[in-house]
């Protein structure tokens, strides 16, 4: 203890205090102030950058979600359009075939009708020709036998009416 007190050098103490105070003031002005300010501003910058990055990330996510939704909508729309087109195609095909069927039926029906008509006409003509032929034959036959043509014709008419064709 006394050795320490004996060793105590006031001069060294004086210089130490003087040097340290001058050093503190000098460093404060030329070093610590600028350094701490730069560190603070850098840290603020990093904080801001991190925050904006986070914001950007969330925005990106939103954007991505939007895109996804748009894509889904587009896909759904495409599907709908395709389905419609397919339906339309089928409908067109069905309609066309129905129409064709109808037309064909109609044509067939008309053909049948005209065939019937032709047949009828042909029948009638044939009947008439047969009748005329029969009459001519009968006239020739009966002329020999009958003198009264009129009476004979009525008799033949009556006979043809009884004789059913078909």
């Amino acid at each position, binding site marked *: 203890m006394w050795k320490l007190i004996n060793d105590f050098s006031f001069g060294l103490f004086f210089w130490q205090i003087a040097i340290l105070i001058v050093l503190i003031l000098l460093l404060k002005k030329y070093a610590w102030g600028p350094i701490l300010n*730069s560190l603070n501003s850098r840290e603020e910058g990093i904080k801001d950058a991190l925050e904006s990055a986070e914001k950007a990330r969330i925005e990106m996510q939103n954007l991505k979600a939007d895109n996804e939704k748009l894509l889904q909508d587009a896909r759904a729309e495409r599907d709908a359009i395709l389905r419609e087109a397919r339906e339309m195609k089928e409908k067109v095909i069905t309609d066309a075939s129905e129409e064709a069927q109808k037309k064909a039926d109609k044509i067939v029906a008309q053909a049948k009708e005209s065939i019937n008509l032709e047949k009828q006409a042909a029948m009638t003509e044939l009947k008439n020709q047969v009748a005329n032929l029969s009459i001519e034959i009968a006239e020739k036959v009966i002329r020999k036998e009958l003198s009264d043509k009129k009476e004979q014709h009525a008799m033949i008419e009556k006979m043809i009416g009884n004789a059913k064709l078909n």
Partner: protein
Amino acid sequence: MRKKNIFNFFLGGLFILVSMNNMNGQENEHNDEAEEHGQEAHATAEEDGAVNTKEGIKEFVDHHLKDSHYFSFFADGEAGEHFGFPLPVILWDNGLKVFSASEFHYGEELAEIDGTHYKLYHTKIYKTDAEGTITYDERGFPANEKPLDFSITKNVIAMLTASLLLFLFFWGLARNYKKSKIPTGFGRILEPLVIYVRDDIAKPNIGPKYKKYMSLLLTVFFFILLLNLFGLTPLGINVTGNIAVTFGLALITFLIVQFSGNKHYWKHIFWMPGVPVPMKIVLMPIEILGMFTKPFALMIRLFANMTAGHVVVMSLLGLIFIFQNWIAGPTFFLFTIFISVIELLVAFLQAYIFTLLSALYIGMAVEDHADHPDDHSDDLPVV
């Protein structure tokens, strides 16, 4: 003898200054015998100046721990030669007296300045008569009158060098930030330390008012750190192991703490809230004592740690010169390296602890107690 010489050279060069008085190997300097046979012992020591005895090494270590008026790099004890340069002596003794320490011839001669004789005795300057008589008081210390010694001693040189280096380092770092936001080169080592002091010492201990004290804490931290590291170099500097230096550092902390103390701080000292009145009266002197013990502990802790480290390293090296054989040499050399590495840790640790506790004391003085008036858990004991 030649080998011894080389070792001697090595010892001085590797670790610490060999100041002139160490070489003289004086023993029992404080008793009457030394007084009577002082001159004789002096003469004997000069004949056999090698540091290879127990007493010689004790002296050597003792003088290494002290300040010096010479900046010696090493000395040849046997030849009595010193390699270094004298430093200016500035005395205040009925007027300013400035002269070179070379006047003392490493303590062998008296310096006569303006008709007054001065003697350099164990690194201190005393006023003596023309014969250089030193008288001793009852404790064995020289009783001669001491002039006020403002000399630029080795420790002052070391502190100035450290200050200059610190200024260059951190001025450089500050300018570095103007160019880029990220430091380059040596600044990459300094920046984490600055951030560490701010985030792990100042902020948690002082709280929101930490900015005001950053300059003090940073300067003190790096000042102590650099001087501690200087102490590990072979230049033989022991600044932070000097009681005057640690006293100055602790005094600054003490004054800062007292001047930043708010009313809660003073109330805690003089009229502790939340305890019965008799306890308040008992606590008052304890708290007042605590005001002084805290910086006192700071002073002693740094001083004792650094001194102890230097003593251990020097003593281990000294053992090499006592044994002087091929087993002891490498063994103690390795021991010394081991202790030196520990000392490197201690250099950082002590700078950290001094700054941390300073911050803690400042924090206690400026803390706002409004939120928890009954909480005294922050009144930590002196570590």
